C-alpha cells in the first residue's frame, strides 16, 4: 500500500437483486475487502452513514449477509442543491465455504462507517504443521 497515492472517487455500485423488491428505492453494494490470516477470515465493508443499531449481520446456510440501513431522518428539511453521489441502504452477501468457520464466534465491529467482521476458522480447517519423524 502506498499511502502517498491520490485518492480517486469510487462510483457506488448498485446491488443487482436476485429477487424482486417491492420497494422502488436503490440499494448499494458496500466496497469490501476480504483477507485471510492463519486463524480467521476478515471481511471489511464500507457503509458510511450506518450506525451499529442499523447494521444487520446473519449467517445462514453458509451465506454471510450484511445489510445496513441509512437514517433518513437526518436528511429531513434538507433540499439538495448540488450532488455528486447518491444515498441509500447497503446490502451484500457472500457464500462461505461450508463448515469452515466457527459461526458462534463471529465478531463484528463498526468504526467510522466501516464494518469489520472476523470469522474464526473452524479447528479442522486451520493449517496444521506435520512433524517429521
Amino acid at each position: 500500500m502506498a499511502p502517498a497515492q491520490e485518492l480517486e472517487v469510487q462510483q457506488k455500485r448498485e446491488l443487482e437483486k436476485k429477487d424482486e423488491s417491492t420497494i422502488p428505492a436503490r440499494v448499494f453494494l458496500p466496497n469490501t475487502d476480504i483477507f485471510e490470516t492463519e486463524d480467521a477470515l476478515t471481511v471489511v465493508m464500507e457503509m458510511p452513514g450506518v450506525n451499529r443499531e442499523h447494521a444487520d449481520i446473519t449467517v445462514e446456510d453458509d451465506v454471510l449477509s450484511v445489510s445496513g440501513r441509512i437514517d433518513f431522518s437526518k436528511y429531513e428539511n434538507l433540499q439538495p442543491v448540488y450532488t455528486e453521489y447518491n444515498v441509500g441502504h447497503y446490502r451484500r452477501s457472500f457464500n462461505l465455504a461450508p463448515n469452515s468457520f466457527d459461526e458462534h464466534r463471529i465478531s463484528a465491529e463498526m468504526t467510522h462507517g466501516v464494518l469489520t467482521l472476523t470469522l474464526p476458522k473452524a479447528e479442522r480447517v486451520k493449517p496444521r504443521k506435520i512433524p517429521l519423524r
Partner: protein
Amino acid sequence: MALSLADPFDTLFRFQRALEQQLDSDWLENATSGIGAFPSINVFQRGSDFVAIIELPGVSKDDLGLEVRGNTIRIYGKKTLDYGAKASMHRRERIAGNFDRTISLPVRLDPDRITADYREGILALSLPRAESDKPKAIKVN
C-alpha cells in the same frame, strides 16, 4: 421538496430521485476544484443556510483536516488501510491514499459559525450564510 417520513420507503425513493436530479447541477459551477475529485460532496439547503455532506468511510478524525477562508472550504487528509502483515488478500475494493479538495460556495458564509460533525464515516459541515448575505425585507412606506 419537503421530506416527510410518512412512508419511509417512498421517502427514500423520492430522496434518491431528488439527489439524481441535482447531479448535473451547475450550482457550484467552477467553484469546486475538480468535479469528480475525492471526496464526493453533496450540498443541501436548509432554510437560508447550507449543509455539505461528505462520505469518508474509514478515515479517522485525526487524519482529517478542515480549513475555511472566506467562502472557501478545504477538506484534506489521508485514508489508510491496515490488514496486518500476515494477511493474504482475497478481495480488495477499498482504496487508500491522500485527498485534498477545495470548494467555494457561491454565497457569503459566516466563517465563525461553521461547524463540522464527523460520525459513522460521514462529515457534515453546517455552513451558515453571512448575515450580510441574507435578503432583507424592505418596508414599503
